[in-house]
């Protein structure tokens, strides 16, 4: 605990000194601040990553939570800092959803990608007694009955909501479903209680119930199956043709950060992702370690941004 406070004091002190220091030696000569945008698992992974990166850098990486506004507040903060590598952000697809949803006035081009770290793949679950074994089953049943499908996901414009809509569109149920927004991972409970017909959330929230047989995971939204759930098909296999949506997480700095600084952070991030501790955490927390260098990461961000813009456009959620 005192370590945390001490570190943040160090950071602020270092910042004050840093402003006055004339010539600059080699990066990093003071702690690097990593802004974390969300609580729960995003925060836990971020804290662990910062901890592991610190072992491969002369100065520590300090995780600082700036949650709120669905990531907008944290992006705004890092966007406003100097492009010197001392302020980095633990980012995700939320940069695209925040921008296209009109929450922030700048898009992914305002940031220099450092490295892709991990992906998280949402899972689509239904009640155990639904009798559905695939998305195709579900779609056929709903179309035959004419009743609306109640699907739980996070709030409108969130990544899980967009993924839900993409699945519904792929199986032709866009007009036959009601999106019920939930926060704090309550969707699985509502599903077990029978108030929902289906829910799309992170697998960690479903796995224990899936194993206990209280609900059934139909598919995962990535093109390939995931290591956490080797027996669960992908949504493409299950009836949603061509579906491939994953939530990546990675590190970025304000645009214009010098390449040699980016390279150092990239190297530390790479070492962290290769550690046994990080791999073990991936299994228990429920994400896939998926390192990519800054160039490949940049291409991914741009590609994903177009997909998200299209999706939000179709749903009438695109504000800019």
């Amino acid at each position: 605990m005192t370590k945390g406070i001490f570190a943040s004091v160090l950071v602020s002190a270092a910042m004050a000194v840093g402003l006055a220091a004339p010539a600059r030696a080699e990066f990093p000569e003071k702690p690097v601040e990593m802004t974390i945008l969300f609580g729960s698992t995003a925060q836990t992974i971020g804290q662990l990553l910062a901890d592991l990166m610190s072992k491969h850098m002369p100065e520590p990486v300090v995780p600082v939570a700036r949650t709120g506004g669905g990531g907008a507040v944290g992006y705004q903060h890092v966007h406003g800092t100097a492009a010197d590598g001392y302020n980095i952000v633990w980012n995700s697809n939320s940069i695209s959803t925040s921008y296209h949803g009109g929450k922030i006035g700048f898009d992914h081009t305002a940031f220099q990608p450092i490295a892709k770290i991990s992906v998280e793949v949402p899972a689509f679950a239904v009640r155990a007694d639904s009798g559905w074994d695939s998305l195709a089953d579900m779609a056929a049943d709903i179309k035959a009955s004419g009743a609306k499908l109640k699907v739980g996901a996070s709030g409108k414009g969130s990544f899980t909501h967009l993924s839900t809509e993409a699945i519904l569109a792929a199986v032709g149920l866009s007009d036959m479903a009601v999106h019920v927004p939930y926060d704090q991972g309550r969707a699985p409970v509502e599903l077990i209680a029978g108030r929902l017909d289906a829910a799309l959330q992170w697998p960690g929230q479903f796995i224990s119930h899936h194993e206990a047989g209280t609900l059934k995971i139909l598919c995962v939204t990535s093109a390939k199956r995931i290591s956490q759930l080797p027996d669960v098909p992908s949504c493409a296999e299950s009836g949603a043709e061509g579906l491939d949506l994953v939530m990546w997480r990675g590190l970025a700095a304000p645009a214009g950060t010098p390449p040699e600084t980016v390279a150092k952070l990239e190297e530390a991030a790479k070492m962290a992702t290769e550690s046994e501790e990080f791999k073990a955490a991936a299994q228990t927390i429920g994400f896939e370690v998926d390192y990519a260098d800054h160039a490949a990461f940049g291409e991914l961000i741009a590609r994903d941004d177009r997909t998200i813009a299209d999706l939000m456009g179709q749903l009438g959620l695109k504000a800019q």
Partner: protein
Amino acid sequence: MDLLLTAAQVALAPAALLAVLAGTLLGVIFGAIPGLTFTVAMALVVPMSFSLETAPAIGLLLGTYIGGMTGGSVPAILLGIPGTPSAAATVLDGYPLTRRGKASLALGTAVVASAFGGIVSLIVMVVSVDMVAKLALRFGPAETFGLLVFGLSTICGLAQKSLVKGLIAGVLGLMVMTIGIDEMEGVQRLTFGTVVMQQGISLLVAMIALFAVPHVIDAFVDHYTGGRRIEAVADVRAELPTIRDILRDFWLMLRCALLGTGIGAIPGTGGPIAAFLAYAHAQKSSKRPERFGKGEMAGVVAPETANNAVTGGAMIPLLSLGIPGDPATAILLSGLLIHGLIPGPMLFIQNPGEIYQIYLAIIVAYVSVVAIQLLGIRFFVQVLRVPAHLLAVGIIIMCAYGAFAIRNSVFDVISVAVLGAMAYGLMRVGIPLTPIILGLVLGPAIEREFRTAMILSEGDPSVFVGSLPAAVFLGLAVLIVGTQVVRATRATLSARRTEDKASASVTPSE
């Protein structure tokens, strides 16, 4: 039994015990300093728990949680500033008790009540985790909405003199919480096109502003005008409650403990709601309800028992369903995950040993909390010797730091200043602050549950009367508000009549 013994060996090993003790101490300190809360303490502790073994890691987190929950009552009683939102209801009678020179008695009673609530909720959890979890499942959005509206109706009891002023305060609280991004529709509300306002007003920030800032301003005003020195409480003897004192409220404690456990088990509720409901219950069931708000011990016992019972209650959906009920349990969840414990139905089958370790850690945490606090009381009450204006400086610094620490945001510090100044103004015109807190706590949850219920029913409002629990709670709320309105109108009318009579009878008739 073997499992229990093995678990005891692990959970009661020196390292694990030390971790629980350290966590509890840290929790009590963070809970006891106005401005710092145990949610912040837990966020700081999580990274430390990464490198610990499973048992000490769980112990550290649980200790911080429980210590913080109990520690929040210390400033609530001594200074009138709750250390956590859950302790807001404790202020109502705890602070008047301090002013009557009964600070240490109130503190001692509070810690015993807390431990009692926590242990009862633990027993309920051990005995009936499956049953309670199944019952909690029946509480969908419509039922939770009913329960929350019922909770909101207790504003009537807290409104003190004027029902209208109480309602104004409650609505102000509800309004403040609409600022920011609406998580359900993803739209911005009252953000004035800025990014900083998108984060909205944190409940903790609002609480610091409402309770601490007016108190501090008051202290300065008194000091510089040389006004009344009501703060000078000379009697700071450490007077502990006797067993008989505590047994007198035994049935009340038991009822409040069960209430707190039940509320804790329902996702989307939490400590503050349980505390206020328990307070209202204590007042209703008391033989002398008029003494509440003036320093009635039952008014401290009830909320403290209930808010600690929430800790055990909240563990039920957390462990059996994997659902965190509040920010603190969400942090606990990530701490469990990192050690490979995935909460949910399989946890009880795959990791029964760890479940026992969790139970034991909770017991150890409560034992340490009682020890720490009873030993600490004689030190805590020394705070009352510090001149009010000097203490105020310390409080305001801790509040500014605490507000910043929640989200590392300067916006939150400014919010404390702005809301605090407004709160001082409201206090001066006689608008009570406690209903504002109730509005703040319940507002977002009520809105969310109402809208979710309506979406689920596809716009059919009959869902709120169609289910028995929802109908019962809403009926109770209507009953409470109804009788209060009738009573208030009658009081106003009769006051007016006496007034009329007084002005009419210029010439004495008799």
